[in-house]
């Protein structure tokens, strides 16, 4: 009997611990959701129970966000930036990853590590010179500055990710293509690329989410509201003087968070094996 109680107690403790962790990670997002759906009188009344609606929920904040702010514009900006950066990144990282995995041998290994280390050079070290370079190019206060700068971290990241993938691919596939009369280049285009679609998709998704997550460069280079990407716009532009529009801010944060959260969860395992580079065999 005592054993049964001990076992039940252990189970309860286990699920309580799980509940603690889930609560810890999801509460801020629950808070975004409930704040974005509450009416203002409900939000700004300290005697109300804050965890649930004391007045009927409303979509007023979402309506205001889309009609009275530049939120729609920021969404489009982020989309344009993301697509352009993905294209630039793939053009540079696909051949680079393949070359470092297959064509350059021992020096390729060193070069690969070198490229990856540049991923660790922080924006807060580079933003001063980059902001001068961007000013000289006439791109200050324009979202195209971000299209230029974001590949500096997405190219190293994706090169590393794709390099690991190409290394794991059986070399016999290309050899067969070459024996059948393809050039090395032809084998890459006709055999390797079609077979790497899953890896390419992973690279696309992570490039896109990295551009959405970035904040420091956007904050440094862009101050005019109409050019901001969504993350920067929501975080810095929905404040009038000292007044925070909490309902609108939380609504915007929620909309921008959802796609990133879904994408991350779908591709998480590839991401982990990508950045740890198979540190454990």
């Amino acid at each position, binding site marked *: 009997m005592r054993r049964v109680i001990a076992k039940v107690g252990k189970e309860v403790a286990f699920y309580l*611990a*799980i509940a603690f*962790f*889930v609560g*810890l*990670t999801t509460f*801020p*997002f629950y808070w*975004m959701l409930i704040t974005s759906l509450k009416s203002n009188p409900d*939000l700004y009344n300290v005697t109300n129970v*804050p*965890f649930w609606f004391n007045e009927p929920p409303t979509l007023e904040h979402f309506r205001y966000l889309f009609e009275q702010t530049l939120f729609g514009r920021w969404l489009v900006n982020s989309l344009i930036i993301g697509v352009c950066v993905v294209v630039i990144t793939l053009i540079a*990282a696909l*051949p*680079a990853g393949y*070359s470092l995995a297959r*064509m*350059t041998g021992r020096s*390729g290994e060193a070069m690969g590590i070198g490229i990856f280390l*540049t991923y*660790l*050079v*922080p924006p*807060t*070290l*580079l*933003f*001063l*010179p*980059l*902001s001068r370079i961007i000013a000289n190019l006439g791109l200050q206060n324009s979202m195209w500055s971000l299209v230029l*700068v974001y590949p500096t971290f997405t*190219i190293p990241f994706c*090169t590393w990710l794709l390099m690991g993938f190409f290394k794991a691919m059986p070399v016999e596939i290309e050899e067969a293509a070459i024996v059948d*009369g393809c*050039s*090395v*280049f032809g084998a890459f285009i006709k055999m390797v690329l079609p077979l790497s679609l899953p890896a390419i998709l992973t690279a696309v998704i992570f490039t896109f989410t990295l551009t959405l*997550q970035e*904040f*420091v460069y956007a904050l*440094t280079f862009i101050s005019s509201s109409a050019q901001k990407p969504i993350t920067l716009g*929501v*975080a810095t532009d929905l404040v009038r003087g000292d007044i*925070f529009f*909490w309902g609108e*801010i*939380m609504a915007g*944060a929620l909309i921008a*968070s959802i796609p*990133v*959260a879904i994408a*991350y*969860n779908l591709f*998480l395992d590839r991401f982990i094996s990508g*950045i*740890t*580079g198979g*540190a*454990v065999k």
Partner: protein
Amino acid sequence: MVTIAEPVRKQPVSRFRFILDRRDVLGALFVAPAILYVFLLVGVPFLLAVYYSISAYTIYDPSWRFVGLSNFEQVIQNPVFLDTLGNTFLFTFGSQLLGLILGKFGALLLLRPFPGRKIVRALIILPWAVPIALASVAWEWMFDSLYSVINWTLIALGVIDRSNAPNWLGNPHLAMLCVIVVNAWRFFPFAIVVFLAGITSVPQDIIDAATVDGAGFWRRNYQIILPMILPIVAIGLIFGIVFTFTDLSVVYLLTNGGPVNATSVLGFEGFQVGIVSGDVSHGAAISLFMLPVLFLVVIGMLRFIRRREI
């Protein structure tokens, strides 16, 4: 009768075929765009940052006059900067330690199969997946001086009184605690994932053998599993340290370095001086104080990568 395959019709061969077949030439061509991009927009700016730090460059007076190490001297003599340096270390190691503890504990929980584990993992990963700037604003709202949900709960539970409710972001010590907690909150899901990836890669027969030999839960964890997953944990930790040590967004959005510089960190201070005030040379000097730590981290990383190859 033996059938012989039709001879393949010769296709016209491109004039550039000799390039397309040379592995070494093609290899160099393939890697060139990536190297060039990174060199032009990471390598060159890095050298520029070093030069700015030893010049008298400001955005109002973009002179390249060489002034030696005087920028660094002036920066060090500023008492605010010394606070900033201390804050940066406290911020980094506080949040990494808290993140590691939560991460290890969470990984142990998620190791055990239970119904709904996939959904739980998806929910736990959220803080790390969602853009930190957006999560920071949510936390700012939760720490609000008047409408803080944390304070409301504490008051409802009778722990504190409304008249002396803490002003989370307005008190120097509490503000530091807040930025550390938010950053740990953001990183511990990453730590969980890294620990999980490591632990699941430990061969089960080794753990079984240890169990048969009489190793208990703690001994299995700390004398067998932990040493085996150390490389992968180290790489995860290196990421955490680099991105925290050089971070600016959490501090910028939650406290704006305040109250009175109590939460100012190196990245933030470099931004304030170099971008907001336009004093590029001093800003660059402040940012370059990150370099020694980054170098140590990079050396650590290279050591682990090399160990992997052996």
